[in-house]
């Protein structure tokens, strides 16, 4: 297990520092793990108990609440005024709101594939920056810059500075400006047998993907860079002595060693693709760019906000998609750590 050794190497340095600093830590005792005292047990219970209660109470209880609400009709105003309707909201999504639901789901799917590609670019950036480029810190900061910007800012930048038909950079010098934000024409379409309308990638969603890439690549780059820092340089040297070229050494040595980070990046990519809604809302949800997260938000929090049942049902669908992935990931992650 190369990666285990690496990590111990890394932490051994810091451990040594601290041991020098704290006198009691300096002596090494290899005794049996002693039984905890009563007071310690109490403290430990509190340490586990307080965060757990807060987390369950304010994250999981409301989640279950949403699941319950998805089977009701409720205007969201008075507690108890809900009315059980069974699966009616879900039925409505698949029969009445199918022209909204399926394109939104499809956009999520496109986003998933696209952000996957962006992650690769982020990895490439990280890889190049990790190889001792001069001014690496500056490049890092530049690529990371979009991540620290708030969405209101990102929305403004792309809408007014880049995409605007009258003054946007992408439309400079064009006689016929392109409507990047509003054009919901599809670049390609295909028919799904049981759907009324075809699915496809709209032009404005494609434009929006550019803005998303701008943010996502920097995020992945930083995570990956953090991982690469822990790859033992001697490994790569060994690879290059063995006659591996750049690609081979990355493919055969670095990438496999980076498995834990790869998984983290994968999870972040998938979850971001499923949960995305804020950048679209920041651009005022142009038609054709709807994703599931937007449908949830609009039905639950919009003016009137009267369709809590329907909004919750959208939410539960989103939840199931996310949970499916979360469970796969956690299973993968903890099975390894337990072994």
């Amino acid at each position: 297990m190369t990666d285990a050794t690496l990590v111990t190497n890394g932490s051994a340095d810091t451990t040594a520092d601290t041991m020098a600093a704290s006198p009691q830590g300096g002596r090494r005792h290899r005794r049996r793990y002693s039984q905890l005292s009563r007071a310690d047990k109490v403290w430990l219970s509190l340490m586990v108990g307080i965060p757990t209660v807060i987390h369950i109470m304010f994250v999981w209880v409301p989640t279950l609440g949403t699941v319950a609400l998805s089977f009701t009709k409720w205007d969201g105003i008075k507690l108890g005024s809900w009315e059980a309707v069974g699966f009616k909201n879900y039925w409505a999504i698949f029969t009445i709101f199918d022209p909204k639901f399926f394109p939104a789901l499809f956009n999520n799917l496109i986003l998933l594939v696209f952000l996957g590609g962006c992650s690769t670019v982020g990895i490439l950036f990280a890889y190049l920056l990790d190889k001792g480029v001069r001014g690496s810190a500056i490049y890092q900061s530049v690529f990371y810059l979009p991540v620290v910007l708030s969405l209101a800012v990102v929305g403004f930048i792309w809408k007014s500075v880049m995409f605007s038909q009258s003054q946007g950079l992408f439309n400079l010098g064009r006689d016929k400006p392109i409507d990047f934000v509003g054009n919901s024409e599809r670049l390609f379409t295909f028919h799904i047998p049981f759907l009324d309308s075809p699915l496809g990638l709209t032009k404005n969603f494609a434009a929006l993907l550019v803005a998303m890439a701008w943010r996502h690549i920097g995020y992945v780059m930083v995570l990956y860079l953090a991982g690469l820092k822990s790859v033992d340089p001697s490994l790569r040297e060994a690879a290059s002595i063995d006659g591996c070229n750049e690609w081979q050494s990355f493919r055969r040595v670095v990438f496999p060693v980076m498995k834990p980070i790869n998984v983290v990046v994968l999870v972040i990519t998938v979850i971001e693709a499923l949960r995305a809604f804020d950048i679209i809302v920041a651009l005022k949800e142009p038609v054709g760019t709807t994703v599931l997260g937007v449908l949830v938000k609009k039905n639950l929090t919009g003016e009137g906000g009267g369709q809590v049942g329907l909004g919750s049902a959208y939410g539960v669908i989103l939840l199931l998609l996310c949970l499916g992935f979360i469970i796969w990931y956690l299973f993968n992650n903890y099975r390894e750590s337990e072994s």
Partner: protein
Amino acid sequence: MSDQTEHSPHPRDVGFSINRRQMLAGASALSLAAFLAACGSDEKSAPDTTAAPTTTAAASPDSTAPVGSTAPAPSGDTVTFGSNYSDDKPKQAIQAAIDSTGLNVKVNTTDHNSFQDNITNYLAQPDDVLCWFSGYRMRFFADKGLIGDISDVWDGLGDFNDSFKSASTGNDGKQYFVPFYYYPWAVHYRKSVFADKGYEVPTNKAELVALATKMQADGLIPFAYANDGKWPVQGTFDIINMRTNGYQYHIDLLAGKESWTDDRTKATFAAWAELLPFHQENPNGRTWQEAATALENKEAGMYFLGTFVATNSTDQAYLDDLDFFNFPELDSAVGADALDAPIDGFMMAADPKNLEGAKALLSGLGSAEAIDAFLAIEGASVAASSAADTSGYNKIQAKSAELVGAAKNIAQFLDRDTSPDFVSNVIGDAFASFVADPSQVDSILSGIEEQKSTYLG
């Protein structure tokens, strides 16, 4: 809901009222009463006689039972006020209006868009008095019991005619709203452009199409067009529907009583599709400010929008050059006597902390002084109060009042005449899809009809 309450204010009443000047005196009596009550200088519950020493007050029959009798607000008791006037200038204007009431008011300003988006959440813990819009949008919350009955405040409001009163009335016949100002939607243009090119203001469809065609030949975009945020083109729908099918059908359609797949509705969309080629391309990705700039820069000849279009510029020469006309008739049998003129105003929380103060504030805001103070700073709208001082009106305001006064029926605006979540979840996308590709009209309309029941049912 009864038919009656769904009507927006009646015609001529809404507009100007130079001939109702006598009410001015009554109004000053009201606000004086409010002022005295607020100061609390007089412990006996100020009857209106003490508050209205000026004799002309008797001229107004409504000057009985004003604020003084209902709300002797104790001194210093703060009233909280939820404001969505977040822009710099309107913010100063609303502050001036509040100051004119002389009450101790704490203003809570949140930005206009999130105030609107979050109104349901906001109403879980509202301020005593809050800004809102008239029409279905107000009734929706009245029906849910989220806002307070202010019928007794209305007993003291003498300066609004019946049409404003009905626009402020909930489905239960009680009043929930104090109107403040309104602004009509009309076709804006630059006088200089029309003069240079010899254009005439069109009064019917043939003239409109001829004018638009001529503008295109002259290298102008006939109509500037924008739809960022998905509400601007709803104005186009409103006016074309009212011109094609009349006011009553329009209101019934929005209330869910008529079908979106009806031939009459389709006729509206056919007319819209016919006029669409005269509009600026790709409206969906353009803000109304950009479209207004196209008008200002003489790239476009006309722009159909609310009179707030003027707020996009500070160039006085342009503002002097700006004028508007009523959207021409499309069908002579229907005429051109209906239009959108949304009213903005105030509501009271269902259970305000300071009930008396809230009512005193609403009375004060319903007075001529308040709207005069407001319009002195932000002059893009027209006072709802018939006692307001119209002498300081600029051209646009005077003409707005005239236009609305001449109209026979006044609608609020699409998102105020029907359920707001129906608009934000269904109509917004549907209309945006239509202007992007009018050939899809049939599937778009059947989609609206299908989804309507979820929100209006």
